């Protein structure tokens, strides 16, 4: 390490790192950081940097060497106390954290398929759609409207199932999505990687086209208009009263039922995330996890070693699909509305972008990826849009080229350019950092080995001893 020259910035980072990881400092640092961020967001509920600071505290919590109990405790406080309060104070943040949790859960599910088993699934939202339409169909009045033309529901149609059956449907959605994954996977998992990607893409489009057109001969999906209203599970009235009495003084006003529902779905999504993380962690080092890795790295070699290739892939496909199914049920209930447009190809690519950005196979990476993409989408792009439209209202002029902002086309709305964002992220990540922002341990090791090999090649003498310093990085 000593022989390489360092620039002052790197030295500073090293010193900070050494200081931050010593003794009790990380505990104190985290406590101060979280407290500061919380106060900042609490005092200025519209500030984006303060909110980002709060989000980033989760990263510090993850990386700094503190005891497991401390991490869990601070994490719980952040997720269950700080976030809800802030979310209710500014409903926009609640949407952001809800979307982050939903997409993080989806991305974690896709991560099993793409990151662990190496199967590129471009139709992942199809399974999400299966779950969503399952609850949308049974949790609404749709079953009584099978012979009606879309949009002509007679008033007073009863709901088919009681709202509390939502909880049952969380599991049913999981099962049905898994079944669909099994039925699709059984034939198509025999085809090679890039073909599989196109086939799953096709499947995603098929599901969307079906959702769009199955309003005849029987009106199953209500066509392009989508199904609404969809029931939400009942919240226990006693708990609501207690919670409201606690939260009202903190928030400064009475909390509405809708906000409680948003909180409820946010916490439900968190629960599902925790479940995914536990499952993935347990699987990663199990026989199945090793089989996934073997199949991902070299299918032929894995088969030769006795790994049942199709079965292994199928399992990854099914587990990934089932998580998407649960999230679909949750999505349908939380929005009380589903339409085919929520499940287009761009959604699949959005989830894929999160996984790739964060790091294939890396759990913290994927969560960070989901957070970054959602924040970019909801806060940065929309912030830019608002800023531009404010400029458009004003009389400001760009000085040198003498261009009045008023003349700017109102089609230039950054919020509409998500595809551009996804595209740039995907290209840049593939070219410069294929392992993602936070690489998975295994991939990091593999990348280092490749680096050492390249070093050996470039030095031309082939002595591994010469290359070893590079491996220490």
């Amino acid at each position, binding site marked *: 390490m000593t022989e390489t020259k360092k620039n002052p910035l790197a030295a500073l980072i090293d010193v900070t790192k050494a200081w931050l990881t010593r003794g009790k400092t990380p505990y104190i640092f985290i406590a101060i950081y979280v407290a500061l961020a919380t106060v900042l967001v609490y005092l200025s509920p519209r500030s984006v940097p303060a909110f980002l600071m709060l989000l980033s505290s989760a990263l510090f919590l993850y990386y700094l060497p503190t005891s497991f109990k401390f991490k869990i405790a601070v994490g719980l406080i952040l997720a269950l106390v700080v976030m809800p309060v802030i979310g209710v104070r500014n409903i926009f943040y609640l949407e952001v954290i809800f979307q982050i949790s939903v997409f993080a859960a989806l991305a974690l599910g896709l991560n099993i398929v793409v990151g662990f088993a190496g199967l*590129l699934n471009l139709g992942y939202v199809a399974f999400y759609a299966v779950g969503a339409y399952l609850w949308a169909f049974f949790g609404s009045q749709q079953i009584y409207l099978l012979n009606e033309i879309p949009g002509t529901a007679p008033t007073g149609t009863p709901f088919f199932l009681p709202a509390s059956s939502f909880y049952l449907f969380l599991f049913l959605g999981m099962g049905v999505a898994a079944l669909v994954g099994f039925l699709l996977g059984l034939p*198509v998992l025999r085809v090679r990687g890039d073909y599989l990607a*196109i086939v799953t893409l096709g499947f995603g489009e098929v599901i969307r086209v079906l959702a769009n057109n199955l309003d*005849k001969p029987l009106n199953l999906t209500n066509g392009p208009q989508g199904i609404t209203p969809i029931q939400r599970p009942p919240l226990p009235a006693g708990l609501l009263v207690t919670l409201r009495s606690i939260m009202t003084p903190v928030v400064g006003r009475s909390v509405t039922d809708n906000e409680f529902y948003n909180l409820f779905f946010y916490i439900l999504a968190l629960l599902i995330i925790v479940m995914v993380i536990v499952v993935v962690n347990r699987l990663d080092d199990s026989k199945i996890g090793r089989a996934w890795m073997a199949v991902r790295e070299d*299918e032929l070699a894995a088969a030769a070693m006795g790994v049942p290739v199709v079965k292994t892939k199928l399992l990854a496909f099914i587990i990934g699909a089932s998580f998407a199914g649960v999230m679909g049920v949750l999505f349908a209930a939380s929005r009380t509305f589903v339409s085919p447009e929520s499940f287009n190809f761009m959604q699949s690519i959005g989830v894929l972008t999160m996984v790739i950005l964060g790091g294939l196979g890396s759990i913290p990476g994927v969560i960070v990826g989901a957070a970054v993409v959602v924040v970019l989408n909801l806060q940065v792009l929309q912030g830019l849009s608002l800023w531009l439209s404010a400029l458009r209202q004003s009389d400001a002029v760009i000085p040198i080229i003498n261009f009045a902002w008023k003349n700017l086309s109102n089609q230039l709305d950054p919020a509409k350019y998500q595809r*551009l964002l996804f*595209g740039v992220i*995907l290209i840049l990540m*593939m*070219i410069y950092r294929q392992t993602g922002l936070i690489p998975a341990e295994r991939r990091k090791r593999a990348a280092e080995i490749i680096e050492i090999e390249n070093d050996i090649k470039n030095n031309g003498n082939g002595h591994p001893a010469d290359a070893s310093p590079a491996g220490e990085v």
Partner: protein
Amino acid sequence: MRRIHNSPLIQGILTPLGQIAIFILGSGAVLSAFMLLMAVIFSNSPANLMCLDKNGISLMEYTLRNLPQVLTDGVTLGFVYAAIALGYTMVYGVLEFINFAHSEIFALGAFVGVETLIVLQNSGKLAAASTLGAYGWMVLAILAGMAAAGATAVLVERVAYRPLRGAPRLVPFISAIGVSFFLQDAIRLVESLTTGQFHRIIPSFANFDQRIPIMRSSLGGVPFSLDLEVKSLWVVAAAVLMLVGLNYLVNTTKIGKAIRSVAQSRDSASLMGINVNLIISLTFLIGGSLGGAAGVLYALKFTRIDPYVGFFPGLKAFTAAVMGGIGNITGAMLGGMVLGMLETFAGAYLSVYTMGAFGAEYKDILAFAILILMLIFRPAGLLGEQVAQKA
């Protein structure tokens, strides 16, 4: 005898012309026979009564009267698909890589062609031109679309694919998805900045929209007719020219030989003194410009384009390429024809035969169903040879 057989004229021009004719006639005949058979089978079903009720004619008559139009439309669409599919198949042949962004190269070609025509229209040149002059402008628009699309394809390869050569298969593929999304919104950005709208409608000029009556006849006392739009003729003529030209280039010229050798083995080709990177760039140029031309033809045929217009034709053309055996130029033409025909048949007849339960919207599903079935049961395609999979 042998010398005649190997002559460039036969190998490069007559053979592909013959193949195209066989593919059209073959797929048309098979599908027509199938439809007539269906009409006979369904003649006593409720579908027949419903057709009588709605259109005043029996199912058989409905089928027969629409058949000529469906066939000509199918051929037109088939040529568009074939031209796009060639781009996929050429790149796949050389790099074993699915160029996911090809559908956006197609859309870009369409936009440049249409914009060229819009500029010409605004300057009054289109209105002033004679029919022949207007055809000249159309050729210019197609060439502009080809040039822009070809150049973009080469640039994309240089920036987003070449640094990833040798990486695991999915890496350049994901990069290609990124390029595809980037290009969609880049087109949208440019188009909406200039006019505030991001869709374009091709100017209507000269006699492109005119219908030439080909046949007037009557069947069972009811007259029926077959018209051919001038623009459909244009699509077919331009596509035939391109397909034959490509076949000539690949099968008989020295450049074609270099392309084929790079497709067989990049390393050996390089040892033989072939500049592999140049050939790969050239492949993207050819594939991209064919896609661009197809884009302009698509705009001519369907009039309205938007930045996302490439998605479905691109996927269907990919299906066509897989159907014919990806990497196989003849196969791409066959796949394009068959898919174009199938889709047009489904669009025309599905609704009537299912009594309106399944409309023409399901023709998109048809392409995917075919793709999935092909990949499962015959991944090498109709014409492809079974090759060992490389990891």
